[in-house]
């Protein structure tokens, strides 16, 4: 079965993103495929390279990046949600006249059209909200 994930909650307040990560691992392990992981709302802040994880805590974003690299996951962050939270790539930095970009390599900024595309091309869309 082809899955896509819509992640809406932030790692700062909830365990949601970690649950989504576990779900993705399990789905892949069982032979399903994941068309796209779409980060929306508060979860957009996870794609910032300026975040620091305390030494005794789990860096969920790092685990996403490792999994994405191993499984060729398409991890898209909603561009509107991202820029609102200070997560910008080089192009957005230029557009909004900011002196630096901080989007982690491995994530892509794009519009909600990528979520619509995921709805069309997946058998299931699973939302991980609050």
């Amino acid at each position, binding site marked *: 079965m082809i899955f896509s994930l*819509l992640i*809406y909650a932030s790692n700062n307040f909830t365990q949601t993103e970690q649950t989504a990560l576990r779900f993705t691992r399990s789905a892949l392990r069982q032979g399903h495929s994941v068309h796209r992981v779409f980060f*929306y*709302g508060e979860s957009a802040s996870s794609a910032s390279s300026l975040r620091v994880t305390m030494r005794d805590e789990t860096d969920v974003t790092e685990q996403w990046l490792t999994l994405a690299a191993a499984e060729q996951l398409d991890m898209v962050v909603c561009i*509107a*949600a991202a820029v609102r939270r200070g997560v910008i790539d080089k192009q957005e930095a230029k557009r909004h006249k900011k002196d630096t970009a901080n989007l982690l390599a491995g994530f892509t900024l794009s*519009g*909600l*059209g990528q*979520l*619509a*595309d995921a*709805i*069309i091309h997946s*058998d*299931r*869309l699973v*939302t991980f*909200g609050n």
Partner: protein
Amino acid sequence: MHYNTLLIFRNGPFENNKNRDCLDIALACSAFDIPISLLFIGDAVLQLTRDLESQIIAQKNIANTLRALEMYDIDKIYVSAADLSRFNLDESSLIVSCNILEQADIALLIRRQDKVINL
């Protein structure tokens, strides 16, 4: 293709960004010709009422976008009858024309969908 999609609104207006974020998903989906239905339950029924004076609290009001949904071919808007009556509201209080559903019909509506997004 199997992508009839239902977006469930369940937060009060101005409580957080969820209703606006949900509405943005609806507009994006309509650009991709995805058949969209909207369901308002709980405090979200207040989002459909007239005269929300959002300028007083310097907030954006999504009412204009809700009124324009028909232009995006989004005309399947459903509201929970129980939640409307909880706030002593009826169809005449709402800014868009809606189908008012009893609990059992809400369950059927959800079951009919291919995708459900519930922020």
